[in-house]
């Protein structure tokens, strides 16, 4: 049970590393952006996991006398980060679209070859 308490963190590590691997190993620029999205999602998951309290409920008061609430602060940070994340991903996609128009490719190595010519 003690180790099961760490399962959420391990999932965070695995997701983080899957995203990291996509960013460093994949050549395609859109795949790299997808990797960044996964990386982001892993960090979101870590924050929300840390905010959870045993037997707690969402930090929204209702009339039914619940007294234990999960931590609202990580939720605030992640809520804004999700919208910021999609905006910055869109910016990245915009850059990729422009790269495709200028170079005719979105594969990193081909772009480097064209640059070296």
């Amino acid at each position, binding site marked *: 049970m003690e180790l099961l308490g760490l399962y959420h963190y391990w999932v965070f590590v695995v997701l983080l590393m899957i995203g990291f691997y996509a960013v460093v190993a994949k050549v395609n620029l859109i795949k790299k952006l997808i990797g960044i999205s996964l990386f982001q999602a892993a960090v979101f998951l870590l924050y929300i996991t840390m905010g959870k309290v045993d037997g707690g*409920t*969402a930090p*929204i008061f*209702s009339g*039914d006398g619940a007294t234990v609430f999960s931590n609202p602060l990580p939720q605030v940070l992640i809520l804004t980060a999700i919208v910021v994340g999609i905006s910055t991903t869109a910016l990245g996609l915009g850059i990729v679209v422009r790269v495709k128009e200028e170079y*005719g*490719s979105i594969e990193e190595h081909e772009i480097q070859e064209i640059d070296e010519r």
Partner: protein
Amino acid sequence: MYYAVTIATLITMALALTRALLGPTVYDRVLAVNMFGTKTVLLFSVIAFLAGRPDFLDLALAYALINFIGVLAVLEFFRSRAARRAEEQREADQRAADGPGAQRRGGEPG
């Protein structure tokens, strides 16, 4: 009883995910994504009651309303791709008709 429904929904989600991973055609994957979306609506509604917070049904309502957009976006993607390919084909035919002097320049790869 909510637990039984939740477990059934979770198993169905896993099955839908398997279908999405197996394919074999892209339409199977789109089907699986759509199915996954409706299962998420069910899961949200049941868990809201399981946790004793029925005011959180807003989440299920949000998914019920906008899950549809994904499928339409895919449909639009297929439609515009077909239109684009037809256009490219037409241009290629045009160039072929113009004669061998007008070679196809750096076309769309893959």
